[in-house]
Each structure stands twice: as structure tokens, then as C-alpha cells.
């Protein structure tokens, strides 16, 4: 109880209840209403969702083929994986999935004339306007009408540094930093009302992702169509991306997940001890490290190495079982 007593020895001030009635609640009400209005206006401004472009979709999905193959290729038998690997590396190199195969020759300078790019920029700007304008207006309104007095006492103690920010307009030296002005109430509401908006407007409301986007870049990223943009605003060169994906695929090694599925199944039902799997792994690691230095190609799936590794693993496995 001692520490509690110390904490409570802060300044106790009695505030006029009229402040609560005429400042606290109205500011909150105004912010909620402005948020709702802003959401509706954003919906109106955005119009119906843009139609996706067939070629762009194909391009993105084509790129996904590479990542899906890399992620889940181990579920396929080796011949299937190799076939897809060969096909995709060739396709990415030739640019089969590119939206605009001749794009590489276009000069990069006339970026402004690309209509899709301009649309995406306009989108981002619209969203930013919808954010900045209400914020500025409300902050000005609060500063004009509600400055010069203390509004609330925050329930937690703060350091001295916050004094200048939170007590703007009330220049005293001794007042506790927990007593704050109306502007800080505005900021509290700005972040705190996010969940209220989600409750009222559903999860897709306009104020939601705004926070992060504002901090990031001035270019918005369109939900459906716009061409891929890097944060610096230059349209990315899809061909380069395809080439890098191609290299990733070439580097991927295939390790068939079903190599020892029988053993795993027997272990799962308790017919074999779990240590068998550990032994198998060790045997395989030993075998590949033996054959590793002798192979110089990128992929370790040369038939001799695989056969040697499997035979070594099989031999070790049989040895353990008989022991």
C-alpha cells in the first residue's frame, strides 16, 4: 500500500463538469461523425472496383507458379518436379507470362503517359486528401476553440518530455504531465476510435489501412489492376523479376518428401521406434557430405549420388533393424 500512497500524492485538481459536457464529449462525437462521413465520401469517390486486367492477372499468377513450385515441389516425384522446373525456367527466360513482351524497349522516361500508372497515382492522392483534409480542419477547430485549458488527467504518469506536446497553450512549470489539453484528447481519439469505426462501418472502412499507408509512401497501391509499383514510384521491370524468380527456381533442390514415407507411417503407428527416423537422417547427411565434394554441379540430383545415398541409407537402416 506504500507505493500506492506515493503515486496518489499527485496533484488533485477539480475540473468544472461543464468541461466534460461541452468539450470532451463533443470532440469525440464530432470525430466519430467525421469518420463516418469520410468513409462514405471515400466510397463515393472510389466508384465501383476497377476491373482486373486479364494480362496483368496472368502475369502475377505466372510469377506465383514459380514460388508455389519452390514451396511445395517436394510433394511431387522427381520427374514431375524436374519437368516443371525446366518448363518454368524456359518460360520465365523467354517472358511467356509477361504482359507486354516488347516493354523492355520502351524508354523509361515517359512514365507519366502510361494511363494505368497515372490512375494508380490518382488513387493514392485521393486517399491522402481524404485523410489530410479532415485532420487539418479538426485540429484547427480544436486549437481555435478549445485551447488554453486542461481537459483530462491521464490515468498513467508520463515523463517531462511530453509536457510541451501535451500541454500546449497552458504554460505552467509545475503542473503534472498527466493533465493534458484538448489537442492530446484529439490524438487519443484518433487512434482509439479505429475499433469503434470497425464496429460501425465493418472491417473495410476507409480509415483503417490509412494509418500505415500515410507513413509509407505517397503512392497508393491499387487493389486490383495497377501495374506493380515499387515504393520509389518507378514501374518495376517485370522481366527482371521473372529472371530473378527463374534463378531461384534453378537453385531449388528437390527432396522428395515421400522417400521414407513407409518408415514414417510405421513409426506413426508405433511399429518402429522413432529413433529410426533420426538414424536415417544422419545416414543421409553423412552420405551427401561424402558425395558432396565430388559433385560440382548446382543440383545434387545426379543419379549416381542419389543411388549411393539411398543405398547407404538403406544399408544403415537394415543394419539398425537387425541389431
Amino acid at each position, binding site marked *: *500500500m506504500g507505493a*500506492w*500512497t506515493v503515486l*496518489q*500524492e499527485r496533484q*488533485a485538481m*477539480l475540473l468544472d463538469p461543464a468541461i466534460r459536457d461541452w468539450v470532451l464529449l463533443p470532440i469525440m462525437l464530432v470525430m466519430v461523425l467525421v469518420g463516418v462521413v469520410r468513409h462514405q465520401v471515400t466510397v463515393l469517390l472510389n466508384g465501383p472496383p476497377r476491373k482486373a486486367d486479364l494480362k496483368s492477372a496472368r502475369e502475377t499468377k505466372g510469377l506465383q507458379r514459380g514460388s508455389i513450385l519452390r514451396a511445395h515441389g517436394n510433394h511431387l516425384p522427381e520427374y514431375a518436379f524436374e519437368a516443371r522446373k525446366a518448363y518454368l525456367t524456359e518460360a520465365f527466360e523467354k517472358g511467356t507470362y509477361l504482359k507486354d513482351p516488347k516493354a523492355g524497349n520502351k524508354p523509361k522516361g515517359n512514365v507519366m503517359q502510361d494511363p494505368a500508372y497515372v490512375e494508380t497515382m490518382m488513387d493514392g492522392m485521393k486517399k491522402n486528401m481524404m485523410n489530410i483534409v479532415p485532420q487539418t480542419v479538426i485540429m484547427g477547430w480544436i486549437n481555435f476553440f478549445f485551447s488554453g485549458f486542461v481537459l483530462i488527467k491521464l490515468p498513467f504518469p508520463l515523463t517531462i518530455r511530453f509536457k510541451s506536446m501535451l500541454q500546449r497553450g497552458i504554460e505552467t512549470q509545475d503542473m503534472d504531465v498527466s493533465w493534458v489539453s484538448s489537442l492530446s484528447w484529439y490524438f487519443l481519439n484518433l487512434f482509439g476510435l479505429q475499433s469503434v469505426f470497425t464496429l460501425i462501418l465493418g472491417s473495410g472502412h476507409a480509415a483503417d489501412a490509412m494509418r500505415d499507408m500515410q507513413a509509407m509512401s505517397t503512392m497508393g497501391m491499387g487493389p486490383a489492376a495497377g501495374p506493380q509499383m515499387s515504393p520509389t514510384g518507378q514501374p518495376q521491370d517485370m522481366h527482371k523479376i521473372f529472371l530473378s524468380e527463374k534463378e531461384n527456381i534453378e537453385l531449388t533442390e528437390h527432396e522428395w518428401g515421400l522417400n521414407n514415407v513407409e518408415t514414417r507411417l510405421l513409426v506413426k503407428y508405433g511399429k518402429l521406434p522413432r529413433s529410426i527416423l533420426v538414424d536415417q537422417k544422419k545416414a543421409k547427411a553423412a552420405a551427401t557430405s561424402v558425395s558432396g565434394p565430388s559433385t560440382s554441379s548446382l543440383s545434387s540430383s545426379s543419379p549416381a549420388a542419389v543411388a549411393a545415398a539411398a543405398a547407404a541409407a538403406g544399408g544403415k537402416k537394415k543394419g539398425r533393424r537387425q541389431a
Partner: protein
Amino acid sequence: MAVQQSPSYFGKLACLFGFLLLFHSGYSTFEHLSYLKAVDGHESGLPTDIVVELLVSVAIFGLGIVLVADNFKEILMETEMAKQSIESLDARPSFYSFNHRGRAVFRNVVLKK
């Protein structure tokens, strides 16, 4: 788990009761603090009965929540997957084809009901 048998009533009652107690203890705190302000006494911590009321309300509320909540879902994906029937293989809703016997077979049966 005999307690699970009447989740609706007892659990909901417990939740309600716990919430009321919580609310009451919160309000008591507020009143206590305003009393102290009015009397100009320095704050020396909450009186014991409010604290006890608070803890009891939390306990009752917790009990109520546990009774009212749905059954747990399994963690292992395997058990969720096992519920998938093989019917889902042939389903493919966007690819339905309608030139099958069902139209003739079911027509009389359903209409006559």
C-alpha cells in the same frame, strides 16, 4: 464434464452476475474517489471491501465465460481434415453440369411432395 450440460442458463447467469458485480465495484471506486476529493482527504488506496468485490466478480465472470464458450476446436489439422468427405472431390460448384439423370429421376419425386 457434467458442468457442460447446462451452458445456456447457469453460464449466462454467472456472466451477468459477474458483470454486475464488476460494474458495481467500478462505480463504488468512482464514488469513493469523489468522496475523498470532496472531503479533501489524501488518497490511501481502495477500501478492502471494494477490492474483495472486484476479485469475486472476476472469479464469477471467469466461471461464466468458461461455461458459455463453445467447445474447443482441435489443434491438429489432421482431425479437421479427417472430417472432409470424399464427396468434396467431385463437388466443384462452379463446374456443375446439368445433363444428368437426376433431372428425370427426381422430378416426379420432389414435385409430388
